[in-house]
């Protein structure tokens, strides 16, 4: 039986100011079950009246041991767990993991697969930003935005279901390419969304961007300077809201992002409103990338979507019936998997939240020796005390929303 250890007050005293010890300020628990913490996040707040003196995030409620589990699974099996980390960016997680595996084993990816990866990753970015916009607006009492956002997100989830059979846990991107080619009607479905969505962005902006209540609640709240944002590990839209054009799609391009034309939106103020502006502009940039991707996809009609390197990628079903070698490859890949050489790689991608990095180490065997997920939510939560000190509790809610966290991503 596990004996519960008593936590003495002395051990935790350094987390609060001296005023809390004397009883001048109040220590209050927020979460883990709280609608505005976007999951199971617990915050220990030291309050002077309604003002936050100190904020100590306590995470780990959603820790599932994914990194440990992956060490006992073969490279292909381990991919299934990547969906479960950041459940709003499943395609992006698959992509980061597959890029790391491909780099580790030095595997090529056909161009058509790259294009489909980019289209899906950008669709996923829009879907994730929609959840962010909906929930963080809901936190500020804008109910209708939430409902509109989830309506549009449904269209994207239906596209994901169309290609992979799953709305969220897709595992569609595989090392060396994709599970299979996109089905008929994919291009039309994405085109329909791309044509429909710009008007919806205008609608959200009409509801929020010039809304005096929204501006009152977000301007000048949670301000962080560019230097501090970098020092505290903010990435993605959160650091771009402070005027730093840090975007891995531009700086360290992957999957052919260097061939697409798009801008990296930034805002100067570094507050909640600036981060909102950046994300809303990213909707439009993602649409731009998707449009270019669709054009490329039409040119690459009929091209392969999986690498022809049979040591890593299983042969198509049609070959197995006629080719002995294909049968052997198929058998080997599904019984013992492929082996990766001894070595380690780190692959950063731009997830909707920020830099998602996979550190992958191989030991020559068929299972990863160590997988480390550098997740944006973990880094952003660490900056929360810095962002929230001196603000009201109600503003803290806006700040949590503005750094866009997913607890599955933070706790892994």
């Amino acid at each position: 039986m596990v004996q519960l250890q008593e936590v003495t007050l002395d051990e935790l005293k350094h987390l609060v100011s001296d005023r809390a010890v004397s009883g001048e300020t109040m220590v209050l628990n927020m979460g883990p079950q709280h609608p505005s913490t976007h999951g199971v996040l617990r915050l220990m707040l030291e309050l002077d009246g309604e003002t936050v003196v100190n904020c100590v995030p306590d995470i780990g409620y959603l820790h599932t041991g994914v990194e440990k589990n992956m060490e006992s699974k073969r490279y292909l099996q381990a991919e299934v767990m990547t969906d479960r980390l950041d459940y709003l960016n499943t395609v992006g997680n698959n992509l980061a993991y597959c890029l790391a595996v491909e780099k580790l084993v030095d595997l090529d990816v056909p161009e058509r697969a790259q294009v489909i990866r980019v289209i899906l990753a950008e669709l996923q970015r829009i879907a994730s930003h929609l959840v962010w916009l909906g929930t963080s607006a809901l936190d500020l009492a804008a109910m209708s935005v939430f409902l509109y956002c989830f309506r549009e997100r449904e269209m994207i989830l239906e596209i994901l279901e169309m290609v992979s059979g799953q709305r969220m846990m897709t595992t569609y991107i595989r090392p060396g390419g994709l599970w299979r080619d996109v089905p008929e009607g994919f291009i039309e479905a994405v085109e329909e969304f791309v044509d429909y969505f710009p008007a919806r962005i205008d609608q959200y902006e009409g509801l929020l961007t010039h809304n005096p209540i929204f501006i009152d609640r977000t301007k000048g709240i949670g301000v962080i300077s560019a230097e501090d944002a970098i020092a505290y590990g903010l990435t993605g839209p959160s650091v771009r809201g402070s005027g730093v054009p840090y975007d891995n799609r531009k700086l360290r391009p992957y999957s052919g992002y260097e061939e697409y034309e798009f801008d990296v939106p930034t805002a100067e103020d570094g507050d909640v409103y600036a981060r909102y502006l950046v994300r809303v502009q990213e909707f439009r940039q993602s649409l731009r990338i998707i449009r270019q991707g669709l054009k490329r996809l039409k040119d690459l009609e009929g091209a392969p979507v999986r690498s022809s390197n049979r040591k890593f990628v299983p042969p198509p079903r049609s070959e197995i019936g006629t080719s002995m070698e294909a049968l052997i490859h198929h058998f080997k890949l599904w019984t013992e998997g492929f082996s990766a050489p001894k070595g380690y790689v780190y692959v950063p991608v731009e997830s909707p939240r920020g830099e998602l990095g996979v550190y992958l180490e191989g030991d020559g065997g068929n299972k990863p020796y160590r997988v480390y997920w550098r997740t944006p939510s973990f880094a952003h939560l660490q900056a929360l005390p810095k962002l929230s000190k001196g603000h009201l509790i109600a503003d803290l809610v806006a700040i949590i929303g503005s750094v866009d966290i997913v607890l599955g991503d933070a706790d892994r």
Partner: protein
Amino acid sequence: MMSDKLKEAIQALKDEFQAEEVVFRGEHTLLLKPTQIVDACRKLRDEFDFNVLSGITAVDYWPEEEIRFHVVYQLYSLAHNLTLRLRALVPGTNPSVPTIEGVYPNANWYEREVWDMFGIRFEGHSDLRRILMPYEWEGHPLRKDYPLGYEEVQFSFNAEEIDAKKPYAQE
């Protein structure tokens, strides 16, 4: 196709700390002693603009004892768009590394995570508590000698032996 700036940084660290360099798939890694980490990070940040600490993690090479852990520091320079990795080689008995909180403030949580998962102490850390596992947890899950936690399968020949080890609820 390696940038001159990165070459310069690597050479400077090699000269000052006798660091060993590992290159794999175009990624550069420097192996250092734990005591050199703080100075190396400060030098990289101040002289070579490595202003972003992407993450800290560790790798366990159990049953190796002499150098059982590698603590991995993933650095990035936003100004020059360069990536560099440092690895501190840590022994298996009383593993500890000085904290780099003073150089990169966001090392705080990453080091807590490494302490939680691997049991590597960070000397001078301001708040070295567990971060992901519960407060009263015993052991460090990502160590290689830590079991994954499956329930052992009971067969007729070893049913009682396994039963005796099972953690039934006590009165």
